[in-house]
């Protein structure tokens, strides 16, 4: 069995304060130290997947569908408060899934939202799957767009498609995917539909096989844009491995205490560049071939 290995790009990984994803394929970072600090044991897995989304989008159902873990699925906001973990194998590679608390955004000050934001920022998962309620897309996109400012290794699981159909809502997933710059997979996790496609999309993004387009971030007022760019530049100079300096800059300008703390104690610079996604894919391939 032959395995398609992605071709190495000529551009060397380096600091970047352009929106994340421009050189994504070569620049993915395996964040061992931080992940372990956040309580995730990465020893037996090749890729770490974060599962995010608004409360009440069927995220737990997607989690169960991916990992087969028997967990209670509730239909009321706030059920998924504790982070759960699971794992699955796909085409020879081992994936670990971290289920983040359901949150409406990453900007609020509740502990749920902190936990989710911290994990995305410092844990730097290989793929972030955002579960979105197809029947309430507008509100759900708030979180998606925020996450896209932190990372663009994202796969959107457009869930509850059966409900959308029932209510006469139809979504042009291709247009959505183009707008967001990331794969959008329609799913109906309760009915088990769309899961194979979701797994495939996750694998593709994790192994750097999908070309992810840079998304033009939300247009900011010029004076704000200037401040963000300046600060982002200073951040990138101080913390070379930081891929989402614009997000951090924005949080600092807003006066977010936990971001200030991260800058002060240097944990922002802990992003460890041990492995590249390619190397891990190589190791995974070797494992299956042997």
């Amino acid at each position, binding site marked *: 069995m032959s395995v398609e290995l992605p071709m190495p790009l000529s551009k060397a990984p380096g600091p970047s304060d352009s929106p994340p994803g421009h050189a994504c394929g070569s620049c993915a970072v395996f964040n061992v130290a931080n992940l372990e600090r956040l309580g995730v044991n990465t020893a037996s897995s090749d890729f770490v997947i974060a599962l995010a989304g608004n*409360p*009440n989008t069927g995220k737990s159902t997607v989690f169960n569908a991916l990992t087969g873990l*028997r*967990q*209670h*699925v*509730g*239909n*009321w*906001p*706030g*059920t998924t*408060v*504790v982070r759960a973990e699971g794992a699955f194998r796909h085409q020879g590679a081992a994936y670990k899934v971290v289920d983040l608390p359901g949150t409406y*955004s990453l*900007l609020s000050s*509740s*502990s*749920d939202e902190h936990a989710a934001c911290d994990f995305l920022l410092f844990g730097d998962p290989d793929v972030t799957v955002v579960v979105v309620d197809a*029947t309430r*897309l*507008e*509100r759900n*996109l*708030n979180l998606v*767009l*925020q996450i896209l400012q932190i990372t663009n290794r994202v796969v959107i699981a457009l869930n509850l498609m059966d409900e959308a159909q029932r*209510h*006469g*809502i*139809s*979504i*042009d*997933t291709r*247009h*959505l995917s183009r*707008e*967001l710059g990331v794969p959008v997979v329609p799913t109906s996790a*309760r009915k088990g539909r769309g899961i194979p496609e979701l797994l495939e999309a996750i694998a593709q993004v994790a192994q750097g096989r999908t070309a992810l387009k840079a998304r033009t971030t*939300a*247009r*900011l*007022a010029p*004076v*704000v844009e200037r*401040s963000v760019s*300046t*600060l982002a530049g*200073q*951040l990138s100079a*101080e913390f070379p491995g930081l891929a989402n300096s614009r997000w951090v*800059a*924005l949080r*600092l*300008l*807003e006066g977010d205490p936990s971001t*200030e703390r991260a*800058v*002060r104690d*240097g944990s922002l610079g802990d992003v460890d560049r041990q492995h590249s996604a390619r190397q891990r894919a190589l190791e995974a391939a070797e494992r299956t071939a042997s």
Partner: protein
Amino acid sequence: MSAPRILESATRLRAELPRGFADDVVASIYDDAERIVRHSVTSDSKRARLGMDQVLDRALTHRVWGFVVMGVLFYGVFWFTIVGAALPSDLLYTLLVDKGHSSLRGLFVDLGAAPWMTGLLIDGVYLGTVWVVAVMLPPMAIFFPLFTLLEDFGYLPRVAFNLDRVFAKSGAHGNQSLTMMMGYGCNAAGVTATRIIDSPRERLIATITNNFSICNGRWPTLILMGTIFVGTLVPAPLAGLVAAGAVVAVAVLGIVTTLLVSWVLSRTVLRGETSVYTLELPPYRRPQVWRTIYISLVDRTLKVLRRALVMAAPAGAVIWLISNVTVSGPSLAAHLVRAMDPLGMTLGLNGIILLAYLVAIPANEIIIPTILMLTMTLGPLQYGVQGGVMLDLPEAQAGTVLIQAGGWTLLTAINLMLFSMLHNPCSTTVLTIWKETGSLKWTATATFLPLALAFAVTATTASVARLAGWV
């Protein structure tokens, strides 16, 4: 640029920015979202979308019907649990307790095991374990799937919506109505459910007061008391209704206690800011009935089995030991009963009841069997019942034993119901509280505050009843 200088730079830049710029950032994200949705989503009939949901909501949050439906649904859940569990419980009891116990006993005797070992392991450990399994497994296996189905359907947020004002006025978090309801199945589950309350202060209030939700393990005690002592006060046709009414009254009292204690806590030791509370009413969704039932069933079964092994087994051993270990003549149990009788009398109960509650901290469901056994072995009348072996009796017989041998009165029964509702949580719940709060201080509070309340209330009713000459 070093870290401190970056922070300085941020502060400087921030000063130059317009004051509401953070709002603008959020607004711009939503503008983006709106634009994307406008181009990607087409909605067929916006009205039809909300049609069914609107009809349901109109009924379920109606000024009158909302509460009627709530009452009917929850009464229905309890009724279904009790009735549905009766047959499986009987079957399990016959299999594990009647047949299992005597078979195992016979086996041990045949093998020539020492009487104390047979007693300790079979009459104590084995009996305690299977008793809990037989009594608890069927009700839990029915209550939780039903509750989960309601949750999956989307009904529970509506309950929180209906009851919010009452809880807000009591200084409690809006979601406490939901954790309270969960406690009616099992208090440990209710405590775990408090995770949905974000603020630690309000979460503690919900945790401490969860005990006043009458868990599945305490219903048998209440139902028995209601049937034997309260139902018999009225003519036979009404007996069942009145007995049920007594149980409901105690349950309602539990809710009142929850609100009162929440109110007191939120104004004294757990004072603080009301946290930001938003309740979303999700669309109603057809629950995946079989899958939910299956998962809930398996989950609950495992939990009951584990609890039976970890908590009830040692409790069974302790019960056998205190009844069979003698200290200069009488058994340890007899000594303890005599020591606790004065306190028991003050509370309108007796020493046997208090001893039973002491040894049955792990499991409320073995209270009545233990009381019966102790009454029949330590009381004035001879029944030929073995010490340390829990037993069950049909209601009428149980009533006779308690009244004749135990000297129970209506006061005893009522105070037992009150004590059962108010007293400290079972050991599984205490352990859960400790795990969830990580605080010895609050775990102790959650354990001893209800006990103190139980003492206070029963002592008061006993004194009032005696002073008024009713007893």
